[in-house]
């Protein structure tokens, strides 16, 4: 990567705050992203992946809040930035696309006007914004932009809505795009079209991208690095090739083994991970994955920190060479 990071997240913690005290949900996450780099943040329900993203965009709403840590974006500490500056940054320098496009679309406003508004809100002249909105709609492969610009979101299919949201997100050519499960609700052929489109636009704009997903398969060919989260912790952070072919954390290995192998005609039983992830209210002594881990031993009663492992890092005391088969 080299050079200064575009985004640096250090020891970021998120908690649900109440008069009776804080309930911590994200426990000190670290993440680094160079300009133009693509990273996947992978985890199951409750892993804290989406909360971490909302926190670094400063989009948490009470009772959720950042309780600790720093987020440095393009040299500025976002946790200390006044809300006005933050609003200016969001949508121009950093943009987010969600699973449900209706989260980002105004149902009462024409699509073209919404794309244009993404630019006028950041100081682009109205006529210029209108002209560019048509270009953007064409760029995200929405057919007949002149006509479709006058449509309302409800007249669009799910795939077309997500394309419109991407046009809005990219209108100001942001340096960072966070794509939070943008294709999870879409059909697989449409998912493939959207992944191909975003990947192409990312290259074109030299944009750094964070893909947030529960599906390792989706990101295998999209990213440089993968960050695996479990129960509010980063458990592994590795180059994508190493992560898939030599996972350094037993949780990562189990996640990969739980997927059916499309090349195996004998269709063996899928590898199960017994139990379920802890809730934020559960108290787990030591490693949060210990109760479900097939490699757990005495040492794991102490919570592991991220250890350097090959070209990445893993929060596990036991290196793969010492794993039981």
């Amino acid at each position, binding site marked *: 990567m080299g050079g200064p990071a575009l985004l640096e997240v250090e020891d970021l913690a998120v908690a649900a705050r109440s008069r009776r005290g804080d309930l911590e949900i994200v426990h000190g996450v670290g993440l680094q992203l160079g300009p133009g780099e693509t990273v996947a943040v992978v985890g*199951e*329900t409750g892993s804290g992946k989406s909360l971490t993203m909302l926190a670094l965009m400063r989009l948490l709403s009470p009772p959720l809040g950042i309780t600790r840590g720093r987020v440095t974006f393009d040299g500025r500490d976002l946790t200390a930035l006044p809300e006005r500056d933050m609003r200016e940054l969001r949508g121009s320098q950093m943009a987010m696309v969600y699973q449900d496009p209706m989260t980002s679309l105004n149902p009462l406003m024409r699509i073209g006007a919404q794309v244009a508004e993404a630019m006028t809100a950041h100081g682009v002249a109205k006529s210029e914004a209108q002209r560019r909105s048509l270009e953007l709609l064409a760029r995200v492969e929405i057919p007949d932009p002149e006509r479709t610009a006058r449509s309302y979101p409800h007249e669009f*299919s799910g*795939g*077309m809505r997500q394309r419109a949201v991407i046009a809005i997100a990219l209108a100001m050519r942001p340096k960072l795009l966070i794509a939070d499960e943008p294709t999870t609700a879409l*059909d*697989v*052929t*449409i*998912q*493939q*079209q959207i*992944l*191909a489109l975003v*990947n*192409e636009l990312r290259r074109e704009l030299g944009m750094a991208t964070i893909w947030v997903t*529960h*599906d*390792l*398969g*989706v990101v*295998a*060919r*999209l990213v440089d690095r993968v960050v695996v989260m479990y129960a509010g912790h980063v458990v592994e952070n590795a180059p*994508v*090739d190493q*992560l*898939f*072919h030599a996972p350094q954390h037993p949780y990562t290995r*189990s*996640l*990969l083994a*739980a*997927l*059916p192998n*499309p090349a195996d*005609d004998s*269709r063996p*039983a*899928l*590898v*199960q*991970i017994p139990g*379920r992830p802890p809730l934020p209210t559960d108290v787990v002594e030591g490693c949060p994955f210990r109760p479900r881990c097939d490699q757990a031993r005495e040492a794991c009663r102490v919570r592991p920190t991220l250890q350097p492992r090959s070209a990445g890092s893993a929060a596990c005391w036991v290196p793969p060479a010492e794993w039981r088969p």
Partner: protein
Amino acid sequence: MLEAIDLVKEYPVRGSDRVVNALNGVSLTVGPGETLGVVGESGCGKSTLAKLLVRLEEPTSGRVMLDGVELTALTGRRLRERRRRIQMVFQDPYSSLNPRQTAGRTLDEVLTVHHLSGDARGRSRRVSELLDMVGLPPRFAERYPHEMSGGQRQRIGIARALAVEPQVLLLDEPVSALDVSVRAEIMNLLVRLRGELGLSYLFISHDVAMVRHLSDRVAVMYLGRVVEVGPWSEVLDRPRHPYTRALRDAVPVPDPRITGPIEATVTGEVPDPARPPSGCPFHPRCPLAEDVCRTVEPRLLDLAPGHAAACHVAARTAGQSGPVAT
């Protein structure tokens, strides 16, 4: 054993006299102990098919047969008696379970309604047995849906379906709402139960990888039609229909060593079922489309033993125009 014959389902379009053909003449069979995977994207008619098979809805035309008896012709008690043998498992167990009832109560109620397992003590014994079958300890009888994980709730959903001793389970996206690690345990449970109880499955899913994992035969649906059907390895590993190929190739491969840009294998979206294209319903998106595809709808033809596809180009390549497959 379970047979759908030329099922058609039309829904009226609100505010007009037009109709939408949700199902356009679908014929399928599921043999004893067999798993038929039905795969397709939104709007392909797979959920409508499930509703017709359990008679949650009535077909516009066509028949559903179970063990040679026409379900679609039965009414009243005889229908209830027969229909019991086909049970449905839904995608989201949270919305299909009563939040104010314990799992034990839910199961007990099913047994009571169907006059099964005798008195309260008999039913209670049966509830424990059902929980055991789906891998849950007896104490789960006391739990409410919100006290269970997604996987545990889906186990209860399966136990409820098994309570009436069905022959066929209609599994409608049973693992789609679950996390990857939980998905594996439900898939393994389904494989085990199928072996232990000799059940037949109709496994409806949009997930090609899961269909590949569980099915003996696979039917691919597109816009209310079966466009390809055959043994799982033939259909998914050597597809004849260009849509099956596109669908399979759209599944992301979990291997970063495959290089090169990600490219869409099929362009455009599924057409509006209220305005289906002329000829082959897939022709506007098909890379192989020819003139004939724009005007003549292809019939489902046997291209190899037990392997049929509805494609003019595939039929010509196979060099035959055999009899209509069932």
